[in-house]
């Protein structure tokens, strides 16, 4: 959803009929991304479809970007905007690491991303989810939707496909589930979203962040738990 403030600004620019807010032919990660904290890890998942209108520009993209050793962000919205934001946040976090000698906290990374989104909210179309681990707060997930509100949340879903799976997550997510069970749930949920949302598809990438390790996983498009044909 786009705030009316954003629409008034964008009416001065050329508006694409298909996707209000995007320039015509702009590349979008219309997408399904999610992050859920579990008892022993943060499980982050994303689909891999990047679309320009109804054409799939990249069917195997990686929408999970690492910001620092134990913090990742999932990107949705304009691919250019989110790549630029990720570059800035990585740069600032690397500087922080050098200056303080400590790994940055998830809170810092999230608020940094939120600050960049808020100060440029008229020009950006970016919805990000930040998830990770730090020594002071443990496992945390932050969501920064289109208006650049930065909120710590019990779990986060975002992107055009997320609306189809709120019910599934609301009924099956438990805060005390193990990271492995969380990974199974994330793959199931993203498969369901990919079956119903035209802008989500391809493969599922998941990352489980634990204090000692980041464990990446790849689920090919012909081994999805559900779909892609939907039934």
């Amino acid at each position: 959803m786009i705030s009316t403030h954003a629409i008034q600004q964008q009416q001065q620019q050329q508006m694409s009929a298909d996707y209000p807010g995007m320039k015509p032919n702009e590349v979008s990660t219309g997408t399904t991304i999610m992050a859920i904290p579990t008892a022993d890890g943060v499980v982050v998942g994303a689909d891999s479809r990047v679309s320009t209108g109804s054409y799939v520009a990249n069917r195997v993209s990686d929408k999970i970007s690492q910001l620092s050793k134990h913090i990742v962000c999932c990107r949705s919205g304009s691919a250019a905007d989110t790549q630029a934001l990720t570059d800035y946040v990585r740069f600032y976090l690397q500087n922080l690491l050098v200056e303080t000698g400590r790994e940055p906290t998830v809170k810092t990374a999230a608020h940094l991303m939120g600050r960049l989104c808020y100060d440029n909210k008229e020009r950006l179309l970016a919805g990000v989810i930040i998830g990770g681990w730090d020594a002071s707060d443990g496992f945390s997930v932050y969501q920064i939707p289109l208006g650049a509100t930065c909120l710590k949340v019990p779990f986060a879903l975002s992107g055009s496909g997320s609306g189809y799976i709120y019910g599934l997550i609301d009924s099956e997510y438990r805060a005390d589930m193990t990271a492995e069970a969380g990974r199974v749930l994330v793959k199931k949920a993203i498969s369901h979203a990919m079956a119903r949302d035209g802008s989500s598809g391809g493969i599922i990438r998941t990352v489980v962040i634990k204090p000692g390790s980041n464990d990446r996983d790849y689920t090919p498009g012909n081994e999805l738990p559900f779909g892609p044909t939907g039934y």
Partner: protein
Amino acid sequence: SGEYSDFKAIINLLERKALEEETSVLSDSLYKSTAMSASQIWNYLRFVMYSKRNKFDPYWNDLVVAGTDSTTGKPFLGMIDKIGTTIQENFLATGYGGYIALPLLREKWRPDLTEGEARALLEDCMKVLFFRDCRASSRIQLAKAEKGQDGTTAAATFIVSDPYDLDMTGAWDAPSFVQAKGNLEDDGGW
């Protein structure tokens, strides 16, 4: 392809036309009714689509007609778009197929393709279309129109398969696909 309700309206028109043809033959008349062949249907639909276009109220469809040609008895393939443009060709495609499938078909089509080769070619096109069109599904149906065994010029056999899933083994396995791009040491995620 296109608007399903308009497609059903067109099918309804064709069914009514066929029924009229069949039932208006007098039993003692010399006139023998024959089913409309594909080329005749194609011509009729051209008229239908163009008339609607002239009233600024088109049927929002791209139609492909396959079967036999009534004059020559040879296989026939033709297309009519929503404004009444007609094309007759050895291979046709609608939507993104024009960009993705037609080049593949132009390379691989031969007049002496066997049925198995033709099916494999179409499945390959549909697979690529599933990769690259947001609105496509990997579950498809294939249909075949064969001319009658008794040498009539109308298409006598017409079979539509049940929906089935395309074979996607290996479609997602390339090492560069599996490779993560978003880690710190990579170039920023794509």
